[in-house]
């Protein structure tokens, strides 16, 4: 008997890696990686702000008041003589925490509602969509102000309030994707093989809906950061001593005539962060779309 050639056996990890490569294989371009790099910096700052060798972000040094960039400290000082660079790094924490929490709340609650509505249809779907339309039709800033007035100004409360605003958008995205996934034959095939409803929802529908939701999550995070800074600009975000980007812009507007950098630097930081989030989110989303059409 001739020696049988040993079949090439790939490990599960290799296979997964290859599947990933097929999805991400084509280049994203340098812009994408630049955006990712910026986001990593922001995330790093948010995580390790307390341990970085920075000046105290809330310590006013009157002598440094309205100092310009590169005069003693990297980015200068604000109207109270606090170090702007240090405040930026610490402010990233608020933006990142609120961004993550609010988007998670919106994604989990809205996603679950949307999947259930899209799968079961009927009265529940109609009622839910009506309620969501009402929330969407409401001016979001007014609603947000009311919510914040009601549940307070802690980091968590503000995350919940903004997250609540995102439920309708997520529910719609999840519902739309569920409607199209449920039409696919593999859902019927799973049902024909005896899968229960919960199994179909978790094993067949969720894995196919979660990717668009996650990709949308990055774009949503950019918007959440803007919403949070709008609140901070109105003085309704996290309480005063804690630095936030929106708060810094708000404080800087008094010095616009004499010291532009106080408002400009946090604005640019926020602009870059939101741009990066949109950029990365958009690229990922289109990559997942391409993947789906390839199948």
């Amino acid at each position, binding site marked *: 008997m001739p020696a049988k050639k040993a*079949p*090439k*056996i*790939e*490990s*599960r990890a290799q*296979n*997964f890696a290859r*599947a990933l490569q*097929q999805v991400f294989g084509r280049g994203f371009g340098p812009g994408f990686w630049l955006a990712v790099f910026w986001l990593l910096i922001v995330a790093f700052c948010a995580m390790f702000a307390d341990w970085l060798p920075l000046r105290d972000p809330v310590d006013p040094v009157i002598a440094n008041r309205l100092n310009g960039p590169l005069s003693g400290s990297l980015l200068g000082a604000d109207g109270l003589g606090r170090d702007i660079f240090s405040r930026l790094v610490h402010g990233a924490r608020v933006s990142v925490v609120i961004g993550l929490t609010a988007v998670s709340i919106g994604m989990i609650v809205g996603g679950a509602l949307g999947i259930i509505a899209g799968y079961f*249809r*009927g009265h529940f779907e109609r009622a839910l969509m009506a309620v969501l339309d009402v929330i969407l039709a409401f001016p979001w800033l007014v609603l947000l102000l009311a919510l914040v007035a009601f549940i307070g100004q802690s980091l968590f409360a503000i995350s919940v309030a903004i997250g609540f605003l995102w439920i309708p958008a997520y529910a719609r995205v999840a519902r739309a994707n569920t409607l199209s996934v449920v039409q*696919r*034959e*593999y859902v*019927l*095939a*799973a*049902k*024909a*093989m*005896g*899968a*229960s409803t919960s*199994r179909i929802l978790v*094993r*067949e529908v969720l*894995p*196919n809906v979660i*990717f668009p939701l996650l990709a949308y999550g990055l774009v949503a995070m950019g918007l959440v950061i803007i919403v949070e800074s709008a609140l901070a600009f109105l003085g309704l975000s996290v309480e005063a001593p804690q630095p936030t980007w929106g708060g810094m812009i708000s404080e800087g507007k008094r010095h616009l005539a004499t010291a532009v950098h106080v408002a400009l630097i946090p604005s640019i930081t926020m602009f870059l962060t939101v741009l990066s989030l949109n950029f990365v989110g958009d690229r990922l989303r289109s990559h997942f779309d391409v993947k*789906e059409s*390839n*199948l």
Partner: protein
Amino acid sequence: MTPAELEEQPLLLDVRNLTIRLNSAAGLVHAVEDVSFVLREGQTLGIVGESGSGKSVMARSLLNLLPRRSVAQRQGSVVLSGREISALSERDLQKLRGAQVAMIFQDPMTALNPVLTICVQVSEPLQQHLGLSKPAARQRAIELLDAVGIPDAASRVDQYPHQLSGGMRQRVVIAIALACDPALLIADEPTTALDVTVQKQILDLLSRLQTQRRMGMLLITHDLGVVASRADYIAVMYAGRLVELAPATTLFSAMRHPYTEALFNSIPRITDPAHTRLQAIPGRPPQLHNPAPGCAFAPRCQYAQQRCHRETPPVVPSEPSVSSVVPVGQTQHVHACFFPVTRPITGGAN
């Protein structure tokens, strides 16, 4: 098995007077009208008909798979291994699906979940119905993939559907369907989306596995050629009705219904000289909502007479010697036509 042996097998599926009407924007769709047939263990029943003749709706209704809100009316009975399907709870149905009855769908491109590996999808029913542990199910999945002729199954098992070809995917779908050794396999146009060469492989595989496991099989297709050599019985459906049902050999030698004849004549024959016109059936298949009285095929039928447009022909036995009442578990030749074709069929056999 000889026909006589087949007759003695216990009844697997007994469908009687099944009528299904579906809701649609245009009104009630008479998708399945008064369909009766039986299937015994180890038998293959081929169901042939044009697109939209109610084959798939009928197949799905056997497992109560039609969306509940789209079914307006359901009459008649479906008895599977002695149990009436419509009387079962959803939970009992779930135990039945996959374990006793499995289904293969038309398009292997969409019948597999793109984001789960083959392993996960094949072992799912194993874990659910047979209670296998994850590693045991994985082992069994590899064996199954091997059995359906997937080379190098041990490494293929961790791939995703998009890494497999169409024929491979259909083999995976078959492996999933056979995972729990079902007694009945419903194959809903299993080869329509495949190349002709792959079609033959898949059909041969199905026949082989069916003989090995003594499954009953419902082979749904729009291609008479597909069922000709593989089915023990052939049922021809038109506009939701069963117009002719006969043992495969009898059907081709003595077809009675004009529609069967027209279908048969429309098969291109390799012995025909080049550039022979294909024989098409004139007209279009009827709309199934609010059907007119009379035989649905009458407008396209070359033998139609006045009566065909007024009355719906009942299903009657084709041999005059048998009593005119359709007996329980009928497996003889029946047809639904007032003026059946009796001439011997000309042209080359398939």
